[in-house]
């Protein structure tokens, strides 16, 4: 496994984008936001399976927390309705708070886990919560594996 050690700054200057991998949504539990934990084959040589699965499972937990329908969401909903939803001008909704947590988590994961391996996760909210986009970087100037080889195996099985 060719490990290229980068931090985020190095990625910017010395690495070039080789490929992007998209982790799709998992709809088996309905329309709640949840991503598949299936390990994509393109990342086989880049990162350990457990690290990847941990990241996705943590993200799924965050989203489940944001979309939980329970006591707090009822109170928020009723209070907002009584104030004709003007209260959202003052306070943040629970979902927005969790999205900020997610953003910080992804930033932290990028810095600690993914950038050292030449990968970068894009926050799903920037892709319409449809996919987790993982950018795969190669060292500029290295005759590394081209992106062509990974396309044939991206059959999503």
């Amino acid at each position: 496994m060719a490990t290229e050690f980068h931090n985020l700054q190095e990625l910017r200057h010395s690495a070039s984008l080789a490929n992007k991998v998209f982790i799709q949504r998992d709809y088996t539990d309905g329309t709640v936001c949840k991503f598949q934990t299936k390990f994509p084959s393109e990342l086989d040589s880049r990162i350990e399976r457990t690290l990847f699965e941990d990241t996705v499972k943590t993200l799924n937990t965050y989203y489940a927390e944001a979309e939980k329908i329970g006591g707090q969401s009822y109170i928020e909903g009723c209070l907002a309705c009584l104030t004709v939803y003007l209260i959202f001008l003052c306070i943040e909704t629970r979902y927005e708070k969790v999205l900020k947590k997610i953003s910080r988590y992804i930033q932290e994961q990028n810095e600690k886990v993914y950038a050292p391996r030449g990968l970068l996760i894009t926050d799903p909210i920037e892709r319409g919560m449809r996919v987790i986009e993982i950018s795969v970087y190669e060292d500029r100037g290295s005759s590394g594996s081209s992106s062509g080889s990974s396309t044939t195996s991206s059959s999503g099985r």
Partner: protein
Amino acid sequence: MITRKITRKWEKLPGKNTFCCDGRVMMARQKGVFYLTLFLIVGTCSLFFAFECPYLAVHLSPAIPVFAVLLFVFVMAMLLRTSFSDPGVLPRALPEEANFIEMEIEAANGNVLAGQRPPPRIKNVQINNQIVKLKYCYTCKIFRPPRASHCSICDNCVDRFDHHCPWVGNCVGKRNYRYFYLFTLSLSLLTIYIFAFDIVHVVLRSVDSGFVNTLKETPGTVLEVLVCFFTLWSVVGLTGFHTYLISLNQTTNEDIKGSWSGKNRVQNPYSHKNIIKNCCEVLCGPTYPSVLDRRGLMLEDSCSSAPSNGATTVPLNKSSNPATQTTKSSAPLIPNEHTPDEAKPSIGSGTQKSSSSPKEEKPSSPISPNAVAPAVIKESTH
């Protein structure tokens, strides 16, 4: 030399929406009927406050106009909230994502002989032990999430699409369905309220002055009664219909298409089989954020060229970058197909924006999965 011009993302969004207040307000293009709605509500309430309220406040109770004002404010707030908010539009796939999906589809389809129609693009997903088919949207270049649908009027895929309502001048979807429901409910109450007190007012006055004189003194009453009478039937009916849909956790779109009805059809996998739970989920669920980021800043570089893929340096500034590549998506592989039935393999017209398939909105959409065996990408997660 790079010159930077700052534009907001809403200026470059595809689709047929109009934006106001620098991206804060989002509506459909045709707003005529919405203005009519506004006019009817504001006009009728003004007449009520002018003609009925002074009399009723004195002769019956001052609480009557106060309550009417509160109800009116609530109705207007709900209407404006429904009309101005993002219904849950799904952004279109950027070129890399579109290509990724194309390659998945091609891998699943195998070799299609020249001259043969490619099979329709469907993904089967198991939700709560039911098989649900996800369709591919040729305009947005994505497989639509369950319950999403493409609105041909606004030219967007909308999550949990209910219907496009010309009266509010916007689509009704996941993010604004509860406001729409509260609007119809409160409007029903307001209409009934005004209608009832119109009658009371006319009766009370007629006792003093006689019926014909009353009508001469308060001509506004006649107009109000007319408007309320016709509004009552439609709005109260609509409220009842949506209450029924909410209790079953269905959308208007699913109801019209008969997705969950009929013997051979799948049962609704999203329903909790409990009316109260369904109502709570729809009305008291979390407030979903907009994923469109209308007011985000887009930095345009004058010397930018939009490369699709390959070895390019990508700045890590996540907020600006990918949107500068074309948001009018142009996947080079399948440029211009509307639906599988109309497939015209015209490779090379890649930059033309494919228009929405108008068949999406009609209930009897001619999908032909029986004629051509569909290549189905089966998803089974472990």
